[in-house]
Each structure stands twice: as C-alpha cells, then as structure tokens.
C-alpha cells in the first residue's frame, strides 16, 4: 500500500528529521519527496510505501499525531488512491 504524507505549517529546523525518524521506526519507506516554501509556509509532500510497515495504519496516524503536536505542524497521511481517483481518468 502506498500513501501520501503531507506536512504543512510554519517553516522551522528539523521537520524532515522528525517525520522521517518516525517513518523509519515504523519501517515505512520514503519513495519520493517534494517540498516548497510558500510565504513562510512549509509544504512537504512525501510518497511512502507502507507495504512492509510494522504497525497498523491507525497506529501510524497516532504516531504522526504526536509528531504533529511536537513540531506544531499539520501532518496527514492518506492512501494514494484517493488522489489518483480524483485527478486521473
């Protein structure tokens, strides 16, 4: 299963480190990263592979929620298919 992880918020030091640390812990592979800064707002989009992950999707969300609270940014993870189905024919 592949998923899209988005991180949006005010730019600061250590965002990628915090997020990728959790992903490594859960055995989730990062396949692609795309990041931009728009008017001080940091927007990072990651394509991740969850097929060998060590916990359930629900647990991943809980772990990411903790990171989100720690660094004060919005973090979402959603299965890739929702974006595919909305934007591709």
């Amino acid at each position, binding site marked *: 299963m592949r998923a899209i992880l*988005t991180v949006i918020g005010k730019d600061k030091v250590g965002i990628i480190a915090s997020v990728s640390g959790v992903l490594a812990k859960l055995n989730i592979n990062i396949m692609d990263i*795309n990041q931009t800064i728009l008017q001080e707002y940091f927007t990072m989009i990651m394509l991740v592979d969850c097929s060998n992950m060590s916990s359930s*999707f*629900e647990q991943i969300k809980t772990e990411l929620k903790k990171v989100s609270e720690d660094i004060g940014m919005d973090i979402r993870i959603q*299965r890739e*298919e929702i*974006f595919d189905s*909305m934007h*591709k024919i």
Partner: protein
Amino acid sequence: MINQGEILSTIKMIESENLDVRTITMGLSLRDCVDTDAKKSCEKIISKITSYAKNLVKTGEDIEAEYGIPIVNKRISVTPISLIAESSDIKNYVCFAKALDKAAKEVGVDFLGGFSALVEKGFSRGDKILLDSIPEALAETDVVCSSVNVAGTKEGINMDAVKLMGQIIKKTASLTKNHGGIGCAKLVVFSNAVPDNPFMAGAFHGIGEGECVINVGVSGPGVVRSAIKGLKGLPFDQISETIKKTAFKITRVGQLVAKEASERLNASFGIVDLSLAPTPAVGDSVARILEEMGLSTCGTHGTTAALALLNDAVKKGGVMASSHVGGLSGAFIPVSEDEGMIAAVKKGSLSLDKLEAMTCVCSVGLDMIAVPGHTPAETISAIIADEAAIGMINSKTTAVRIIPVPGKDVGDTVEFGGLLGTAPIMPYNKESSVDFINRGGKIPAPIQALKN
C-alpha cells in the same frame, strides 16, 4: 508522483470545503426472515442484521482513517417491512420497528430505513397494518425510518393512501409532540420511490435488489460553491463546465469508498448516489451555490433555473465517475438541513410554493418542511398529492417530508438537532382542500406510462 497542486486541492476540499462521503448504506434483504410467528420473524431480523452489519461501522471508520475522507453516516436499509410482516397474523407491526431499532443500535448505525410499504396501486393486508402502525412505531423507536410510496408514473396516484398519509403525519407529530414532532422527520411519502436510495429517511432495500448491497451517497455543496466562486460575471456555460468537473472529482471519491467498502464487507457494490446533500453547517449549503450564481437570496426569481443547471451539471459530471449510478441522484433541498435555505425562509424569500416549483427540476421534493401544528390533515394530504403529481408526470422521484409542529405557528422555529437542523415554521395556503381529498380513489396513470 501526482502533482503537488492536485494533492493540496484534495486536502483543501476535505479540510475547508466540507467534502465528505455522506453515507455508506448497507441494503439488506429480509425476505428470508418471514415467519407466521411475528416473534420468530423479529428474532430472525435481529439476528440477520447483527450478523451482516456487525462490521459496517468499523469498516466505515477504517476507510475514513486510511483515505482521510470523512464518512459521516453508516446506515442500513431493509426490505419494506410490510412484505416481511404480513405473513404473521398480528394486527400491529410496532414490534417489528422495535426489533429493527434494537438491531440498528447493536451494530451502531445512526439510522435504519425500511419500515415501509409500497401502496401506489393499492393496499395489501400487511400494507394497511403497517401504515396504521407508523405513528406509534416512530414514536417508540429512535433510529428507524419509515417511507410509503403512494404514486408512480406507471401506476398513477393512490389518493386513498394520500388521504391516509395526511392523518398519519398528524398523528406521528402528535405522538412526538414533546420533541417538536420529530417522528415526522423520519417519515417520507414518495412518488416513484427508488429501490437503491442510500439516503434517509427514505431508504429501503427494493425487492429486486440482491442479498446484501453497499450503496454510497456523496456530498460536497461546499466544494461546488467554492469552485464557482471565482467565476463572477461569467456566462452559464462556464458555470456548468466547472460544476461538471467538480462533481466528477466528488463522485470518484464516492466510487472509491463504495468499491472498498463492498469488498471489505463481502457485499455487492450497488450504486453511487450523485446527490448534493447539504448539512446545517455553514459552507455546506445548496442554497448558497444558487446564490453564488448571482441570486441575492435563494427563493427569488431565477432560483428554479439555477437549480436546474446545478442538478443537470452534477449528473453529467458524476455519471462518468462511477460504474453504477443510481439512488436519487440530484440536488437535495431540505429546508431545515441547509443553512442557506433556513436563512432564505427567515428572510421571507423562500416560500412553500417556490420550493414546490424547485422540486420539478431536482430530485427530492418538499423535504424537512415545518408547518404550523394546526395545519389540517387534508391540507398535508393535498401537499402530498401535488408533489406526487409532479413526480408522476415528470417520471421522477418526488417526496414529502413535512412536520406539522405541535404548538408552533408561523414565526416560530423548531430545533431538531444534529443533521436534521433547525426549521422555521412556514405558512401554508389556508383555503380548504377537504372536499378534494375526501373523494378518495385513484388518479389514473398518465399517458407517459404507455411506453410499450
């Protein structure tokens, strides 16, 4: 990888424009729950629902978590109970409603539809008993919804049933008077009812449907409004194109959820219903879409044309996005459940007559309309007859969900809470329809019925 703009646009639709899947509804056949002993039949019903739907709510929540799309309601529709109960010899079907209520609560769904009868051409013994049981059934249960089909293009209008429904609605309001007549919010009177409707209160599992089917209703008035917001002053062609594209995206989400839910629940994929369903939340209103097209307030001249364009464009955009489209598929205009409609009624811009005109071009009918508690039963029947006629002649579904709120009059409002919202009490035409309704009999099927 998908481009960044597309990903962020999906997130924006969900986070700030109220995009959601309104309902995953499991349609379940209860035909094998028939028994001459009503008690045994009720036991079979409870056992079947709780076994087939035991994972429905959990599955909905799992899909919601994985895809990040809110799934607001998980519901069940069942075979019209008049068909199941009439093999028993009892004279009151309230026990069946209670069994449905118990099963629904056990599996945790928010509504269960199907305490229903199809009487467009006449009453069977069980239909009569079911209709007589509706007021008590709705007063004594919490999540059971009832619907009665009184007319159809191929059948005409059963005016005896129309007369009866006026009385049943009044009685239901009276038995639930301590809660603003809320029983009536769970009762729909149809013309051309559809067998695969996922939306409440009118959902039932049609007799031609399979054993267990997943039907999904999408939503997204906020997304449509936001999409046309930037088109100020531009011609209608562009409005229509934009709505089509937006409806396509919304429906694709519904298709994805329906496919995933049916696989996980080991049920057949039924349909995706393309209705734009509003909620009382600000920014989730159909009325505000119409106003975005250039009407100062919903209900003014031009509203019917705006709604016709919206309804048609939603269907055109949605139909290619799903492998099976069905249900009601049109824009909903429930007054109490739409923040913009409520405001328009309060302002005096939106009347019962204008709403009736609007139902000629959208799917649903007079939905969640509150009228004074003293409205005569015959007037309610006549309102039903008018809607049934619109449905019959135009070969479309129409419905009436009207609440004569006990003790309230024009100028008051009634609060139902949750998705059912708040309804300002609307005036009705005081001239009598009594002699018209008392004629009874049937209005014959129209010439449109003769297609062969």
